[in-house]
Structure formats: C-alpha cells, structure tokens
C-alpha cells in the first residue's frame, strides 16, 4: 500500500462510537476507518438525469406519438433531442449514460457529448462515449461512460450516425419521389432552401403540400432528404427536407432544409445543367429512456 493510493470502504456505514470515545487515543487503523468511510461517501453516486419517453411499441415508428424517434441523417452526426443540462456532484469526472432504444433496421451509433467530452465529427463505433444499437429486432439496453466537467453543472447532448441504409420516399403517401430537372430551369439554392420553378407540372401535382386543416402527410418534417445528381455526379450533399410548399399558386415549389451538421448554414451556389432528383429516407431509431448516473470513482 502506498501512502498516496486512495482507499475506501465499499460501502458507507456506521462506525462503532465506542472505538472513538472521548479521551481515547486513536491509532492509524481507527483513523483509517474514518477516512475510508469518508472516501466511500465521497464516491457515492447518484442519478443526474432521468428522461423517459413514450415507450409505445405497438405499430409503426410513425404512430409512436410521444416517443423520441428520428430518422438518421445522410451526412455525418446529427443532433438527437435537446441538450440536457443537469447539476451534479462537483469533482465527479464521469457519468454512466444508460439508453434503452431500438434501431429500425441497421446498426445505429449515438455519440454522447459533454463539456469535457466535446463533439467529435470523426467519432466511430467503439470510441469513448459512442453507444451502438446493434440489434434491429428488439430494443436494447446500452451504456457509455462519458467524461464530464468537474464543476457542478454539465449538459449531455446526443448525436446519431448510421451507415447508409436508405429507401425512396413513399410516393403514395408523400408524392413523387424522383424525377428530372430540365437544364436552365429556374432553380435557386441558398444555404438552407431551394426555390424551384417547375413550370409544368405544377408543384402540387408533384408533392403533397401542407394542409393545416387536415395536416396530411407530406415530405415536410418526415425525415426525408433530397438528392440531386447529374451524370453520376452530385450537385449537393443530401439535404433533409424541413418543409415543402408552393408559393402562392405561381408554379414555384419551395423546399427548406436543415443542415445536418451542428454548423452554421453554408451558402451554396449551383449551376443548373440538368440532372435527376430523388427523395430518400434513412433508417429510423427510437429511444425510450435516457438516464445518467454519477460514476463511482476516485479522482
């Protein structure tokens, strides 16, 4: 035993007060008992996050109304849920994150990010803080040990990533899922939007648009991404469709999208030489519960 190696009892408990009575001398062992007990208390862990969602499992992903469920994005890591702030015991340098979740069809990865474990765009399976949902058939219990700052406030953010596992959008539900773009078509692309003058056919004949009264399914907020290609080349990175509508009956379709990376929207200029477009969806995943516990460790 080194005098610099920390020791502790495995459990905090009562000490016999008779051994520490007033006027009695204390030997190193008795002092050690006090210190080991103290150290056990010092390392005691408590829950810091308990975040449940609707665990409704009967039906499709779409029908699980209160669940935390998302389609993966095409490019890189994409945010999952909100940042979850919490208070914790100062000095605690790690938390154990527990997730109960289900990946729809293929292996999905979830990166846990804190102030002490910053977002890593190149993180991969097996890296510290990366949780993988492996089984596509049943929900899984998965854990990760994540570094946290030593202070009293931290926040946990989750990001997801998946290997490409795509399928075309359901044209019966949402509208056309592929087509061509004529060269020279009025076609404007911004950092987070696309304005597209179809001419003929009218946009409403191509995609379903939002109907606030009935709120029918559209590509808006459905987790689909649009891909543009020409002669095997790619115009743009796939973009997740945020909303899709027609501007005032003028035959102009309008798509806004969200950048998948946690970065500012980039500005893109694009020369339309014609090509094809298609709308795809990645596999989905569902999370029923996120919990985090202080790690019992010596720091």
């Amino acid at each position, binding site marked *: *035993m*080194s005098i610099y*190696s*920390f*020791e*502790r009892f495995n459990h905090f408990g009562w000490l016999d007060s008779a051994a520490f009575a007033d006027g009695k001398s*204390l030997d*190193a062992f008795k*002092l*050690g008992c*006090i*210190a080991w*007990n*103290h*150290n056990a*208390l*010092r390392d005691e862990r408590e*829950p*810091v996050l308990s*975040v449940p*969602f*609707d665990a409704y499992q009967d039906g499709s*992903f*779409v029908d*699980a*109304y*209160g*669940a*935390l*469920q*998302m389609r993966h994005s095409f490019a890189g890591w994409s945010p999952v*849920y*909100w*940042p*979850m*702030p*919490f*208070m*914790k*015991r*100062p*000095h605690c340098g790690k938390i154990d994150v527990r997730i109960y979740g289900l990946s729809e069809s293929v292996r999905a990865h979830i990166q846990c990010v804190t102030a002490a474990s910053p977002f890593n765009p190149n993180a991969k399976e097996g890296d510290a803080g990366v949780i993988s949902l492996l089984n596509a058939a049943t929900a899984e219990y998965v854990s990760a040990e994540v570094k946290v700052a030593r202070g*009293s*406030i931290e*926040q946990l953010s989750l990001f997801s990533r998946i290997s490409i596992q795509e399928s075309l959008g359901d044209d019966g539900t949402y509208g056309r899922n592929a087509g061509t773009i004529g060269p020279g078509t009025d076609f404007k692309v911004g950092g987070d*939007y696309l304005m597209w003058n179809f001419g003929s056919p009218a946009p409403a004949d191509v995609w379903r648009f*939002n109907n*606030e009264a009935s*709120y*029918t*399914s559209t590509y808006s*907020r*459905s*987790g689909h991404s649009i891909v543009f290609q020409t002669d095997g080349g790619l115009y743009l990175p796939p973009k997740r469709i*945020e*909303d899709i509508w027609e501007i005032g009956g003028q035959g102009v379709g309008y798509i*806004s999208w*969200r*950048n998948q990376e946690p970065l500012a929207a980039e500005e893109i200029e694009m020369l339309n030489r014609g090509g094809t477009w298609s709308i795809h969806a990645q596999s989905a995943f569902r999370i029923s519960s996120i919990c985090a516990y202080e790690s019992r460790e*010596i720091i």
Partner: protein
Amino acid sequence: MTQFDGVEYSTCQLIPPAHYHAKASLAGDALQAAMQGAYYFARHSGRMLLCQPYGWNNIGAGRYAQRAVQTYNANYWRIAEGFIDVPPYATHIVALISFAMLSQDEHSVLHRIAVGSDTGQPSSTPVAPSDETMVAAFQKYKGDPRSQLKTRPDPSVFFANPKIASCEIELDTEYTETSNAGVELVVEAKFTKEEASSNFSCYRPGFIWVGYECRG
C-alpha cells in the same frame, strides 16, 4: 486550517493514507477532512428532483405528444409543473431549461420557478417569486421569417439553435428547517415584449431539469 468556531465545507477531497497511516501528528488532518466532507455532503451539491422531457418525433405526422409551440403571449405560461418533497436544508430550487425560440422582433424570454406553500397540499396559486427575485434568462434569436409563416413550425427549426437557461428561487427559511412533503412546483416562461401584435414569436421548451441546492 483549524477552525472550531465555524463550519468548513467548501470542498470534499479524498483523504489519502498519508493523512492517517502511522502519522499520529497528522491525525487532526484526517478527522478534519472527514468532518468537512460530511458537512459538504449535508449542505451542498445540486440534486435532481424532477425531469420534464418532451417527446421528439420527426417522422411523419406523429407529433401529437410534443409540447405545443407557444406563440406570442403577454403572460407567463407553464412549461412544467410537479408535486415534490423539498429536502431538509435545501435553500434553493433550481431549474435548467433547454429551449428554443423564434422571434422576428428579437424578443427575449424570461423563465421563473415557483414553489407552493408548506401546507402539504397543492395550492391553487403557487407562491411565485416577484419579478425582482427571478433570474432572467435573456435569449435573443432572430429566426427565419419563412419558418414563422407556418402555424406549426418544424421542431428542427427550433432545434437548430437550442438555448440553455436557468432560473432559481431561494426558499423561505421554513423550507430549510424541516422536510416539506408535497410542495407544488411550477416553471413558467414569458416573452418580454408587451406588444400583443407580435404574433411571430414562438417558444418551444425541450427539456427541463429541476433540482435543489443547499448553499448553507
């Protein structure tokens, strides 16, 4: 280092064997460290009381359980409520709120937290702190006007720029002396601008953590 007339609990370190192993002359160090640590745990560190998550579903139309977006409203509205026990020695209740907002007019949003009386029954009117005592979380975000044209903005619009705010309330002394079972808890938010015509401001809470602290 020795202080018998006060309470030291500003930190809690592990006690190394060097403090106690056959070092009678340093015995006081071990005892003092253990005592300080005990005070520390008794009187410090934030602990979770309640987590309020909201569903998150970006697939298809299944988004009913998500928290409705609050459009402009001149009054406070509730974003979380609960019925909790306030532990002994707790001096502050703290809320950490993950949220986002869109505002064409660069509104700010205020958050506040309130706890009920100590009667053991939920009160119809929680004891709310005055505006002077609440910790304001000013967040300004000039949103995308296109997104504001819709009555049901996409969660991802908000999600693109989440904010973290905190607010807290210092408890009355009665809360610090006894354990208070069954106390009503309310977290609320409010836009700062008092112009009712500002229909383009939208607020969406995502996650709320509520805990207590004992600040001694």
